[in-house]
């Protein structure tokens, strides 16, 4: 039972990101490296926010403070990563130009959304993994949750929310980078706000208990609505539209390529 739960939740959380990784990232070494590097930046952000949380001794029990700090720090580090990525653009181009056939790789750089997507996914994967991996380790047994008065949907919600944050980071990466490229500060602000909104929504989960599982709906539904909204925004940002969505559905050729 616990093993089944473990595998189910693992697949919920890591299924879609793994598919994305496999189909869009893994074949290109440059993207793997950028993914790794963005993960590293997220780690640095997490480390900073932990230090802040740790240093503020009186506020340690009020997670809201830590969460707000952490969100801001993550966005700052996303900004830093953007700066570094754009600065290193030439170098990366040089590296990958030799790496693949010349007429293929430049796509990564001509279409700036690709690296934005990759780094967003890197942020998301590491954030989602950090938030779920220890839960997963506990999930595999020998015990399970619910006896001490916690909700029995704890694991399921955790998995779904982790998936949500992975995908959200991915969308935010695209929006954020293109907004910075075009100096649209409002959109940058929107990303930060959306991130803050998501984080603060998840504060609701603290109220859950074994006879109060509905609380989860209060965070899950808005989170996924936010994900949908962010997804649409990212799609539009990356040059998508209803027309080419239709075209993609009709004409199957080349639909797996990121243009």
């Amino acid at each position, binding site marked *: 039972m616990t093993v089944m739960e473990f595998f189910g939740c693992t697949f919920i959380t890591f299924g879609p990101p793994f598919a994305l990784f496999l189909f869009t990232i893994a074949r290109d070494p440059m993207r*793997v490296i950028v993914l790794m590097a963005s993960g590293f930046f997220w780690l640095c952000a997490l480390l900073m926010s932990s230090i802040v949380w740790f240093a503020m001794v009186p506020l340690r029990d009020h997670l809201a403070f830590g969460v707000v700090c952490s969100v801001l720090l993550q966005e700052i580090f996303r900004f830093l990563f953007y700066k570094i990525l754009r600065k290193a653009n030439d170098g990366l181009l*040089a590296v990958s130009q030799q790496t693949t056939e010349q007429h293929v790789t430049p796509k990564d750089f001509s279409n700036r959304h690709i690296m934005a997507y990759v780094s967003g996914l890197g942020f998301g994967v590491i*954030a989602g993994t950090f938030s779920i991996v220890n839960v997963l380790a506990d999930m595999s047994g020998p015990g399970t949750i619910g006896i001490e008065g916690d909700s029995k949907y704890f694991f399921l919600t955790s998995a779904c929310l*982790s998936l949500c944050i992975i995908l959200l980071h991915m969308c935010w990466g695209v929006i954020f980078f293109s907004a910075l490229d075009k100096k649209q500060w409002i959109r940058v602000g929107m990303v930060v706000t959306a991130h803050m909104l998501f*984080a603060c929504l998840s504060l609701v989960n603290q109220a859950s208990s074994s006879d109060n599982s509905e609380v989860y709906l209060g965070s899950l539904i808005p989170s996924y609505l936010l994900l949908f909204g962010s997804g649409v925004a990212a799609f539009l940002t990356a040059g998508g539209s209803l027309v080419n969505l239709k075209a993609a559905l009709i004409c199957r050729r080349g639909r797996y390529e990121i243009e």
Partner: protein
Amino acid sequence: MNYQGVTFPILLMELHPFLQISSMNTGDPLASDPREGSPTERTGLMSGNQTSNTDRPSYRSSASDSPTMPETSVNANETAVVGDSNSNRRSRRPREERTRPDSASASTGEDEELMYGAKHVIMLFVPVTLCMMVVVATMSSITFYTQEQNTYFVYTPFQDQEAPTGTKLWQSFANAGIILCAVIVMTIVLLMLYKYRCYKVINGWLIVSSVMMLFFFSYMYLEQVMRAYNSPLDYITASLIVWNFGMGGLFCIHWKGPLLLQQAYLIIISALVALTFIRYLPDWTVWTVLGVMVVWDLVAVLCPKGPLRVLVETAQSRNEPIFPALIYSSAMVWIVTMADDGGRSKKKKKQETKDTDNNADEEDDDGGFKEHMANGISGHSLEDSVAARSAFQALGDMTQAQKDSSVHSSCVDPLSYYEKSEPQTNLAFSESNGNIQDEPTMQRQAVPEGAVGGAVAADESDVSVRSAKKKQKKRARPTGEGASAAGGEGEPSGGEQQRERPAVPGASDDASEMEEERGIKLGLGDFIFYSVLVGKASSNGDWNTTLACFVAILIGLCCTLLLLAMFRKALPALPISLTFGLVFNFATSALVQPFMDKLNSEQVYI
């Protein structure tokens, strides 16, 4: 196991830490031994290489000099090439050069230098990740390696478990100091043996160590696995398994075997040694040893008289590879595999059937290992193959012209030049052509349309012709002329790359063989210490720490490779990675873990 038994691995370890990332140059005389069984063109290849390789202190001179410094490589003789390229490398550093149109060739040359880029990083990521995964999986599933124990190495006499922190601290430092002394002594012994050419002793030493590891450690590991899963196994089966495993390993590592298998064995050995370290070193000592190793690695590799540096330099001056039993190589080491022809021809067929666009994608699929599998031999790295392919397209005529007259021996060197120069030529050309497949915005330099691009191309082909002549004075003349013809004709074809590919089977074989020998080498010691760090981080049961260490180490490895691309000499691979790893390990377990635990248990997401 027991006190005596585990003292041995440390003997092995002394050998390992001298391993750094390095990329060896092509063609080494030792390599000719295992190649005896191979077809005659190999000897042609070897001799061709040797003439060009004799006095090369720089690792990758043959790979990097010719394209980057066309003028100097033409004018200078072989020994001078290195020095020139070194001085020029420094002058080429500044980035703004890339924007200057008339230095387009120079800056593409610099890009060539970065060839050991993304793809090679991944080729190291994969094995390092695999090694860590083996260690972490073992640590988390087999309690034998994590439980408290009372047997330790002789090297760590201080093992007071109940001592106060201060005592533990100095004890761990004392232990680490003793281990470091042992490492230093053994390294110097090895260096002396190598210096005075006691190859037999070294090889005997290495083989004895491998036997110990492959048989004894694997038996121990098997026993613990069986114990952990509570499944009985009779001694006959166990001895059969261990015997086969061990003999296979000995053959693969010390004699010949498929590259993939050799890599797998090296990874397994590293993992086993790492596990033994985690098991038999006292808790605190592991961390101090890791810290001390960082310093030692730095000193030994970078100091002017550092033993490992001397070792590497000696090996280079003798034009030999460093003992293959101790170095993981992402590409060809010294073994020519036996069963490579089938795989290679298959791959070639695959390439031919695909059209140009698909080719790149298809090649992209082979990350790290898969490439070796697809290749049968040992993956020549992607960029190499791409470069070589674009070289062939220009080379087609030339190779065809001299196909019957000792293609291989005379082709080798021009190929090595072409594979460097031609891609740029093509690039420059496709730029100037207003471009077939590319987005026009995308090229790296603002090369003026038409004129300069064409000029660059002409210049480059000219240069490579001249260098080809220079290289093999006697036989190269037809080569050179053929090449110039090819340079003239091949370029206008620009995008239609598949044109001559079927026409040059011999050349493609040769080129791939040459390219196999290039690749990044990473010492097993680096594998071991990375894995020790990650395994130790995972032993306290927090996956976040493990992950953080993993990411930090890989990023450190990336940085090291970046430095490698800049300095192009043997660099210690431990310092950056281990520093990152240690910092993130302690920071994560002390600061991040409580924060994340709280967030996780409250289901708050950040």
